């Protein structure tokens, strides 16, 4: 395997992304790892991007493709909001994302989860996987790490959760995926969207619960950062 490939490969977000509806809004969650091959290009990326005041999107797959699609949709939604004279609905945002994904399916490689709150339908999650299917779901998972979460959600998700239950569910799920998926890692970011507005939350990687067979960090380089004279090779 060509070593250079790891440095020159297109940035992809292996990723775990999740969107969950609860009684009153939605919670979006994601990990923070962007990789080029096996090299972690960015260990603190923000994969939850704003489209409008009340609609956000979780991005997975090709970093470039998902950024460009988000940028276009943000631009179209901005114009739409001005014409409409009121905030765009989550459905319209999802439809625009789908339109771009479907019409450019030969070129793009990005899976997206659109989530938000509007006054007509409340909290809604729309999954738009590769190819440009649009599917409205009570919860959606995406990215390489999501493979490990299907069974978990089948058992753990229920209707009518509270905001805190939903957020804890999302954090737990991303952390489980990070434990098993090499292409997901770093920190967990969540975004809660409801009638009152938008709240971003941050869960550092070392504060997450350790799962089966995961080890505590030993002689981690992060521990030496705060000491007066850091000696990295002191094992």
């Amino acid at each position, binding site marked *: 395997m060509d070593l250079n490939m790891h440095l020159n490969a297109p940035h992809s977000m292996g990723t775990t992304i999740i969107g969950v509806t609860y009684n009153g809004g939605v919670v979006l969650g994601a990990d923070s790892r962007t990789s080029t091959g096996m090299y972690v290009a960015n260990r603190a990326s923000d994969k939850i991007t704003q489209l409008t005041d009340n609609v956000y999107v979780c991005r997975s797959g090709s970093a470039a493709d998902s950024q460009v699609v988000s940028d276009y949709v943000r631009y179209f939604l901005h114009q739409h909001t001005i014409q*409409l004279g009121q905030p765009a609905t989550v*459905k319209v945002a999802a*439809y625009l994302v789908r339109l771009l994904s479907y019409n450019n399916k030969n070129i793009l490689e990005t899976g997206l989860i659109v989530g938000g709150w509007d006054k007509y339908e409340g909290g809604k999650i729309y999954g738009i996987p590769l190819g440009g299917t649009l599917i409205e779901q009570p919860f959606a998972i995406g990215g390489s790490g999501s493979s490990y979460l299907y069974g978990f959600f089948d058992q753990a998700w229920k209707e009518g959760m509270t905001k805190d239950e939903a957020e804890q569910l999302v954090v737990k799920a991303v952390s489980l995926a990070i434990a098993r998926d090499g292409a997901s890692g770093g920190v967990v970011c969540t975004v809660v969207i409801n009638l009152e507005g938008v709240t971003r939350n941050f869960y550092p990687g070392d504060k997450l619960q350790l799962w089966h067979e995961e080890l505590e960090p030993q002689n981690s380089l992060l521990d030496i950062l705060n000491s007066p004279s850091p000696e990295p090779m002191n094992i």
Partner: protein
Amino acid sequence: MSSIGTGYDLSVTTFSPDGRVFQIEYAAKAVDNSGTVIGIKCKDGIVMGVEKLIASKMMLPGSNRRIHSVHRHSGMAVAGLAADGRQIVARAKSEATNYQSVYGEPIPVKELAERVASYVHLCTLYWWLRPFGCGIILGGYDRDGPQLYMVEPSGISNRYFGAAIGKGKQAAKTEIEKLKLSEMTCREGVIAVAKIIYKVHDEAKDKAFELEMSWVCDESKQQHQKVPDDLFEEAKAAARTALEEMDAD
């Protein structure tokens, strides 16, 4: 307010010294010469009615439709040059379908009215086009409830509780103002519209006419459709009776 705009009225791209575009005003006259078209907003929907002046006794009743559905939830009634009206309706239908396929939801009535008005206005900006000789009453029912708009040949569009265009518009407006629209259901509105059209029809100047009515309301499940036959007959009968009572006085 009519005046002769000699010299300044030959092109739609010419202003008169007092700031008027006469061609647009002449287009409005074409609307004023056509049969009356009215629309009212009741508490649960919109009712529109047209006084179709019959040119020939040999015409099939029900032909020459003046009210068209633009989308499932909206319709427009056209006064003035019928052929011009066809163009505008076609454009409105196209805008509505296009909006639905891009945004995934039915076009809001406000947006539709703006697009129609924009299109009508477009044709007042170029010397190689003439303005549309049509007035349009647009009624629809979307997420924000029933709405009624009127678009004039100049491209102005406004939202109304009650609107009237055509020959009998002054008389019709007076009648509409008498109605308590916020308390009326569409069922009652249909009868009221029929009565008004019959009343403003000028028996002396115009011979026969045919009434055409449509509604979009809760009872029609927010779909724009012709008023159901039984209600339509009931409305016509009530209108004729009201007219006879008036004549009897």
